[in-house]
């Protein structure tokens, strides 16, 4: 096994990620290799400080995230709350359009396009099954069906 490989193992050892058998083989190599032993000391003084400083916990921030479930569910709620409004807007618009087309409406008819203002394209968006509560304003990314998301690209990268 090359010194380069042993130096990778030294890095793994810093983080406690070396298997016992690997650790024993590494120790045996260090006893016979001055260069790797010197590198081990250098690594301990350098990256070893980072490894020792790895934070044990990620504190949950205060503020609105002190009740994160309510925050998250609240972010999803508009999906339910808006639906009737969109439905009414679309129904009103359709009824007005139909009435105008049939010649039953006068120019002053309040039903002709004066319903609740719906964003242009909103009905198309909803009809296409897009989640209006999608995260980050992302309208096109479908929610995962069977898993939490595709990591295939990362896997492909790491497998290189």
């Amino acid at each position, binding site marked *: 096994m090359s010194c380069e490989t042993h130096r*990778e193992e030294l890095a793994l050892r810093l983080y406690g990620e070396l298997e016992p058998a690997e650790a024993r083989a590494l120790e045996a190599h260090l006893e016979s290799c001055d260069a790797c032993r010197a590198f081990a000391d*250098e690594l301990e003084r350098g*990256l070893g400080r980072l490894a020792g*400083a790895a*934070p044990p916990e*990620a504190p949950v921030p205060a503020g609105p995230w002190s009740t994160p479930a309510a925050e998250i569910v609240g972010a999803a709620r508009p999906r339910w709350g808006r639906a009737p409004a969109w439905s009414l807007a679309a129904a009103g618009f359709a009824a007005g359009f139909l009435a105008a087309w049939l010649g039953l409406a006068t120019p002053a008819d309040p039903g002709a396009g004066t319903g609740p203002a719906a964003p242009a394209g909103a009905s198309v968006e909803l009809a296409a099954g897009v989640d209006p509560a999608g995260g980050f304003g992302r309208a096109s990314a479908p*929610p995962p069906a069977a898993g939490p998301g595709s990591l295939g690209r990362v896997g492909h990268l*790491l497998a290189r």
Partner: protein
Amino acid sequence: MSAAAERFDRLVAEHHGAVLRICRSILREEHLGRDAAQEAFLRLWRRVERAEPWPDRPLAWLRRAAVSAAIDLRRRRAPDGPDGTVSTVAPGPARATGATPAPGKRGTGAAPGAWRDAADRELFHRLEAALARLPDGQRTVFSLRHDGGLSLREVAAVLGVSTSTAKTQFARACLRLQASLGSDLEPGSEA
């Protein structure tokens, strides 16, 4: 409140810290980490809404969702890669924003407190810059292990790669950081 909503509440309370930590470790900025963490939980909430079965292992599912959401967000913030793959996109927050990371801003969200105890702000800045220069795969694995609170076995699981691949990527990241930071990390060098 329905039983499903109560269960969701419990999961959020139990795992929010872990999910947030994973997202922050990848995105290196507090507010982006929060966005990605929220997206990860929203993905679970949408399953609840659709009355889909709960994941058999909710924490493992949430970890994957967190990594996926964070990588998605990172990719959207740096859409300049020629082929759109992770390896060529988002070479770190510094290039993503076109600005030099401010000391104490990036990374403080990923590793609050403890890193600052080990290094001054200047060293912290250098660390973040060195991280940003790592290849994406190495940086992701290093961040998840060092800041994300996952073992390399868990990192491999969330990324869908073998443990040996994760170990190799992590070790190489470590050696590159050691080489690029040189003696900056050694005691007394930050003075």
